[in-house]
């Protein structure tokens, strides 16, 4: 049977299997079942990776802080995430008297749904993915905005001032960082010539991190702000806001919010692996791509590498001040993303069909621009740093009034 999903080997195989079983006239049932099986695999894969991520991050942070981390439940503490989930499930599910019942229920569910939806377009290996949308890159920056709305509703629905303040802070930050995040991907799209994530991977004769150092840097920083990771975790700054928008959530709902937070980390790492280090391909032996390992294993290795990178960043950098965070998005990241787009566009116009050697020239130009820009911007920001000033304004009292 000729399916429209030639590139999606996994889907075609499952579809063929179910189509043979299904009676005549029920081809749509096979279509549905094949989709459902892949959805099942993707959701459970993301969930298991998220569980593994929480364990790994706690162990890695423990290392950084010269302590052990969880090591009691199961071998090396590997069953710790499952114990945590069980604990959250049997805890009492509190709902504050001032909370808005419907919003309070909806917010965590909506957040998890939005995060899991992004996994639908991520290609895990050659021909192993759920959907190859022709708007893939826009999809994976567009859908998380629903999680932003959910976050705000959660903070509002809690009926708690701290929660509302945390939510307002988080939303202001998320909206600001969405702009450099989307613009930083323009360079990748220009080089790949397509928004489909499968096309982006196949276009990477060199991993795009070599061709797009500035775009990678801006995307990495903006993405860690989007995920509210340290050093941008000021929406849940314990010392200022108790716990931000999820102050009032407990039990299962708190578990869902944690799942959304760490699930987003897993998905963003997957996206970084796909967009910048050539997804399921072996990044080292370009351009002939002897694979050595199955593509899915390469993908997982790259994903875990980015998870470790994020844990490292979290363990190293202190939290930024709220005004610094907003200034950084608009004064540094946004102009850097624009410069990256312009330089890449000029290079693509110069070499529309680059040969392998010309790719290295493009990479050299981009690295030179990236280093010059990063040094110039850090000098500039250092010189024009907003120093904390006393907020008391002296008011002159007119002479006749005194």
């Amino acid at each position: 049977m000729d399916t429209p999903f030639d590139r999606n080997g996994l889907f075609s195989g499952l579809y063929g299997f179910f189509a043979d079983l299904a009676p005549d006239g029920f081809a749509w049932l096979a279509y549905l079942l094949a989709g459902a099986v892949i959805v099942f695999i993707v959701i459970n894969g993301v969930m298991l990776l998220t569980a593994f991520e929480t364990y790994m991050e706690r162990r890695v942070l423990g290392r950084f802080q010269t302590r052990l981390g969880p090591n009691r439940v199961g071998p090396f503490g590997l069953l710790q995430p499952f114990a945590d989930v069980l604990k959250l499930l049997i805890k009492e599910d509190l709902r504050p008297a001032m909370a808005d019942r419907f919003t309070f229920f909806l917010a965590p569910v909506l957040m998890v749904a939005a995060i899991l939806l992004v996994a639908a377009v991520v290609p895990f290996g050659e021909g192993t993915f759920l959907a190859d949308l022709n708007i893939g890159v826009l999809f994976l920056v567009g859908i998380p905005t629903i999680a932003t709305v959910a976050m705000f509703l959660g903070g509002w629905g809690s009926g708690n001032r701290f929660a509302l303040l945390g939510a307002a802070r988080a939303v202001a930050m998320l909206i600001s960082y969405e702009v450099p995040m989307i613009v930083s991907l323009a360079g990748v799209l220009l080089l790949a010539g397509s928004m489909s994530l499968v096309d982006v991977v196949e276009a990477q004769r060199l991993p795009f991190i070599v061709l797009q150092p500035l775009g990678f840097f801006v995307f990495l920083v903006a993405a860690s702000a989007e995920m509210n990771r340290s050093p941008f975790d000021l929406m849940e700054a314990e010392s200022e806001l108790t716990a931000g928008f999820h102050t009032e959530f407990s039990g299962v709902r708190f578990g869902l919010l944690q799942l959304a937070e760490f699930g987003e980390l897993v998905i963003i790492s997957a996206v970084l692996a796909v967009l910048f280090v050539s997804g399921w391909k072996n990044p080292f032996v370009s351009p002939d791509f002897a694979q050595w390992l199955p593509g899915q294993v390469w993908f997982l290795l790259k994903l875990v590498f980015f998870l470790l990178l994020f844990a490292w960043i979290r363990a190293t950098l202190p939290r930024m001040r709220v005004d610094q965070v907003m200034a950084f998005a608009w004064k540094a990241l946004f102009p850097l993303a624009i410069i990256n787009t312009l330089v890449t566009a000029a290079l693509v116009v110069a070499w529309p069909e680059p040969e392998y050697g010309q790719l290295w020239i493009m990479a050299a130009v981009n690295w030179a621009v990236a280093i010059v820009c990063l040094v110039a911007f850090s000098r500039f920001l250092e010189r024009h740093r907003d120093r904390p000033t006393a907020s008391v304004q002296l008011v002159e009292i007119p002479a006749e009034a005194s």
Partner: protein
Amino acid sequence: MTEGIAGTPVFTAVWWVLAVLTVACAVLVVRLQDLVKAAMALIGSFLGIAALFVMLNAEFLAIVQVLVYAGAVSILLIFGIMMVRDTQRGSQANSLAIPAAMLATAMLAIIAVVVLDTRWDLLGDAALATGVAEGAEGVYSDSPPAIGGLLLREFVLPLQAAALLLTATLVGAIALVRGDQ
């Protein structure tokens, strides 16, 4: 994305569910007294429209709908509502009901005329006979490049004008907020 299942019972059923949900959310926006709830219903309506775009093979429009309307506009809307007092009761009824009804009817009439006047069967036999289908093929198979080409070649002047207008709005907003500093 819908090639394999278009026209099957599931497809039709999903279309009906989405259509009913979208309209129901739109009705709720008007009927709910609590302004925050009304904003949530509006987001639901936006998402329903995005899903209908996907079923029409217009993935680019769908994701722009989510990114701009469900993501950004609704957040600004909710921020605006937060500034208003008495969000639970909403605004009081006033004497503008009749002009509003007339305006709404006029809008409905215009949309109905456009819907009835448009040729929807771009790939049907009649369209193939008249040559309309040739232009439609490219748009149907892969819409983002087609839209990008149109925006940056044929309609580049309107695009620039819109960009200029938005920049002017941005500068105006900043000038208003800064006051006389």
